[in-house]
């Protein structure tokens, strides 16, 4: 097989100025291009998403009807217009998306105008580059599989050009075989290519869209997030995971209120947390999906120091670098730790701050519910909230002015952020230090690999109150109104009339959930094995094989050596294969004999093609012509060198398709 590819004789012959694609070759090429373009077009300007399919369809029409070839005078303005269009759409040519957009348009145009073999090969190369571009934004397993399929198709279309006689299945098979040949090299380069602690260059980024929680919270922020089914992070517990009621993953803590939205306060950071961890310990490893910020979701309250992690005065846990990629952290949390027992007065006064005006009814209520001690005030407010007849809903009506009043007295419909926000407002009005904590509450343990998955739909907001002698205490007002939200998750807490629930959260789709658990395991392995293979993981691995002392340049030398060795091994294997007496012609002839053996007419080992042909003609007179032709062609190809590859291909095709029924 390889020698057929190594002999570029055919390619060279076809490089003559004009080469008309055969239909099947063109179909392969178009399929490869279409599959290559499809994932890109989603993220491109609409005119490109329309133009590219139109150009491909045009090419398809040309292929099938042999007409409508684009005139040369039309092509150049078309290409120029496309380039200008990209410039207008993106403002520049640099960066991932503008570059890929340009390539996508050029690929479609190149295919349309392809006149000779060189054009077609350029188009194939463009396809391969665009497939490489798949991974700029998405390195997930499905994308990898899609890329693999498109690469198989693209290589297959190249094979279709080299060997027009091969059938579809053979092309696919050979394409897969070629890719398998490349696998050892891929592994070597993946494992050994030096991973650096700091990248030498960054991926040009167009927009690092912030996903998940951010450093401010307004009504609607979290309920919007709850509709997303995306994974926020995974946690792998050493030992049993905590019960659902204890799964509060602390994220950004909001202190500053402007009457409508909450913001985090400036935070001095230190390597050690401000508390002394005590009591029970929970060990776990977090794998956080990129959200381009620095906060980390952790269980209360992790011990320090942790590599690459700092702690803030309001007990947030923060990464030193933004999470631009998937990152892993190892934490030990102590849920029973008391924090902020002797909180400084300035922070406490900050936690009592309210806007001067607004929400008068809430302020009045707070004054009314104020007890003799802060504890009493707290319990009275909580009792009031429990009994006031609130409804937990994803779609509360929104109101801009005096939103707390509107929620507490008029609508009485709300999501966690409304409850938390109103509660903190009431507490502060009553003079008790309180603040909002956002994060995630809940998480599903995958029964297959025991890894807990926390999704954006688990996003939550709760409150924290400072009490003399107890420090900062977590209070979750949502739990009063919708206790099921805490124990059963979002789906349990919302009434079934809420049609907006993500499909996976609906109870009737339990089987989908099961399927998702399984998929999650695979995706997690992919993340673990491939995507989080970074500097530290590479060091660990190299340590295992005793190469950890190597600096990057020596590592590259090792990589190249191993690569060359692999190449030599493959060459040797190939040479042995080539020395194998059985070439394509022999295999075809053996197949012929096997086919006839089913009719009791196997060729004797010493029987020459002519004798065989005579015997077959006598035994199967109905097929004498076909069989005699095959025998004669074999005799000629085998015993009258040199035989052309085309003829051998044709003969093996004739033998494969031979049907003696």
């Amino acid at each position, binding site marked *: 097989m390889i020698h057929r590819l190594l002999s570029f004789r055919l390619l060279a012959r076809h490089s003559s100025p004009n080469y008309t694609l055969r239909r099947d070759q063109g179909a392969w090429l178009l399929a490869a291009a279409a599959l290559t373009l499809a994932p890109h077009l989603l993220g491109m300007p609409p005119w490109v998403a329309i133009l590219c399919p139109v150009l491909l369809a045009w090419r398809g029409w040309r292929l099938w009807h042999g007409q409508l070839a684009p005139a040369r005078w039309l092509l150049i303005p078309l290409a120029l217009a496309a380039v200008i269009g990209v410039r207008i759409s993106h403002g520049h040519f640099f960066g991932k998306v503008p570059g890929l957009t340009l390539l996508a348009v050029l690929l479609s145009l190149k295919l349309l105008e392809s006149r000779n073999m060189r054009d077609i090969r350029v188009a194939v190369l463009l396809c391969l580059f665009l497939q490489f571009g798949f991974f700029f934004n998405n390195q997930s397993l499905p994308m990898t599989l899609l890329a693999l399929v498109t690469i198989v198709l693209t290589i297959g279309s190249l094979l279709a050009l080299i060997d027009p006689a091969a059938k579809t299945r053979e092309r696919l098979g050979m394409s897969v075989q070629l890719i398998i040949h490349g696998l050892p090299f891929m592994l070597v380069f993946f494992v050994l290519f030096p991973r650096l602690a700091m990248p030498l260059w960054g991926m040009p980024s167009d927009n690092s869209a912030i996903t998940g929680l951010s450093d401010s919270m307004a009504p609607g922020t979290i309920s919007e997030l709850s509709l997303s089914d995306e994974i926020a992070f995974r946690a792998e517990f050493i030992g049993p995971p905590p019960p659902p009621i204890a799964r509060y993953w602390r994220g950004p803590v909001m202190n500053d209120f402007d009457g409508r939205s909450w913001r985090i306060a400036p935070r001095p950071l230190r390597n050690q947390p401000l508390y002394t961890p005590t009591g029970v310990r929970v060990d776990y490893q977090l794998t956080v999906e990129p959200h381009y910020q620095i906060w980390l979701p952790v269980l209360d309250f992790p011990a320090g120091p942790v590599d690459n992690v700092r702690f803030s005065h309001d007990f947030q846990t923060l990464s030193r670098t933004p999470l631009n990629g998937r990152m892993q952290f190892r934490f030990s949390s102590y849920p029973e730790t008391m924090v902020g027992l002797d909180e400084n007065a300035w922070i406490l006064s900050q936690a009592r701050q309210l806007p001067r005006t607004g929400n008068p009814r809430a302020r009045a209520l707070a004054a009314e519910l104020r007890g003799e001690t802060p504890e009493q005030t707290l319990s009275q407010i909580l009792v009031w909230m429990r009994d006031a007849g609130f409804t937990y809903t994803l779609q509360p009506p929104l109101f801009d002015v005096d939103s707390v009043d509107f929620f507490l007295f008029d609508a009485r419909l709300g999501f966690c952020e409304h409850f938390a926000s109103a509660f903190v407002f009431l507490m502060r009005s009553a003079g008790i230090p309180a603040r909002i904590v956002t994060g995630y509450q809940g998480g599903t343990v995958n029964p297959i690999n025991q890894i807990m998955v926390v999704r954006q739909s688990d996003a939550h907001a709760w409150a924290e109150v400072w009490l003399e002698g107890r420090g900062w205490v977590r209070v979750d007002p949502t739990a009063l109104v919708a206790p099921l939200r805490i124990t059963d998750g979002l789906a349990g807490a919302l009434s079934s009339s809420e049609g907006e629930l993500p499909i996976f959260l609906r109870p009737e789709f339990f089987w989908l959930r099961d399927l998702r658990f399984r998929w999650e395991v695979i995706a997690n392995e992919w993340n673990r094995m491939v995507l989080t293979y970074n500097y530290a993981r590479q060091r660990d691995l190299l340590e295992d094989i005793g190469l950890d002392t190597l600096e990057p340049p020596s590592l590259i030398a090792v990589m190249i050596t191993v690569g060359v060795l692999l190449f030599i091994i493959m060459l040797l294997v190939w040479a042995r294969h080539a020395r194998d007496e059985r070439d394509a012609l022999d295999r075809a002839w053996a197949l012929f004999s096997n086919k006839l053996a089913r009719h009791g007419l196997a060729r004797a080992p*010493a*029987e*020459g*093609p*002519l*004798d065989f042909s005579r015997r077959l003609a006598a035994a199967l007179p109905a097929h004498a012509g076909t069989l005699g032709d095959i025998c004669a062609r074999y005799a000629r190809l*085998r*015993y*009258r060198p040199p035989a052309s590859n085309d003829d051998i291909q044709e003969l093996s095709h004739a033998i494969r398709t031979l049907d003696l029924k």
Partner: protein
Amino acid sequence: MPPSLRSHIDDLIDAASQIILGKQDEIKLALACLIARGHLLIEDVPGTGKTTLAHALARLLGLQFQRIQFTSDLLPADILGVSVFERETSTFRFRPGPVFAQLVLADEINRATPKTQSALLEAMEERQITADGQTLPLPEPFFVIATQNPSYQIGTFPLPESQLDRFLLRIHLGYPERAAELELLQSQSRRDLLENLHPVIALDRLQDLQRAVQEQIVAGRLIDYVYALLDVTRQNADFVTGLSPRAGLGLLAAARAWSLIEGRDHVLPEDVQHMFPHVAGHRLHRTSDGRNPVAEELSSLLRDIALP
């Protein structure tokens, strides 16, 4: 091969088939031997048309023909020629013997003494003779058809192995088929028919054919096959000795000639298989009784060797 050569071959075979009835395969074998520049050994009981075949070929090809009847008192000089003293010039002049012909029929070669046999066989190999210190070339082409009675007949000197090797092919004529023999009995005498035969090809056409044989294409695989056949006779304990390299070359040359007669420009395993019994039959000797192997033994040998 040019079409004219092709038609010459067909004409030759057709014409010869008119004379020797029902023996087309043997005629083709004899022709193959001739155009492969080999010598032919015909082994059979008397009266089966050996002489007629040789004579017919000579006439059809327009070759000078000489027949030598071998007897136990035949001397080498009777074949090669003698130097005679010429009174007028007082010198010896060489008077060429019957071997100086383009086609020599050596009838019943195994009736002569070994000395005489070897004189002929050396001439066959060298294609020249040496007499009185003079070297004289034999005519071109030079083709010997020797006939021999089966060696178990009384009063014969079997040819030694080394000399049998010089015959490219050995054929048997055997009794004709019933239909052919009936026709033979009804029609006029073969001798009269021979008298009326005219050459169908010119001498230089024959040489063209001989050249064409050498240009027949032989694939590497086929050489492997020929080697496998030679090797198996050498490894086989049933035979006293295996086939010589000369026999191997002979086998290839014969297969080339046969493929040409079959109308191909390349040699197939079938050609080799067809010629093998004729090339190997007289060269191999069984360990058990020293005789040549029978046809069945040779074809079973062929069946055992798979085509490479």
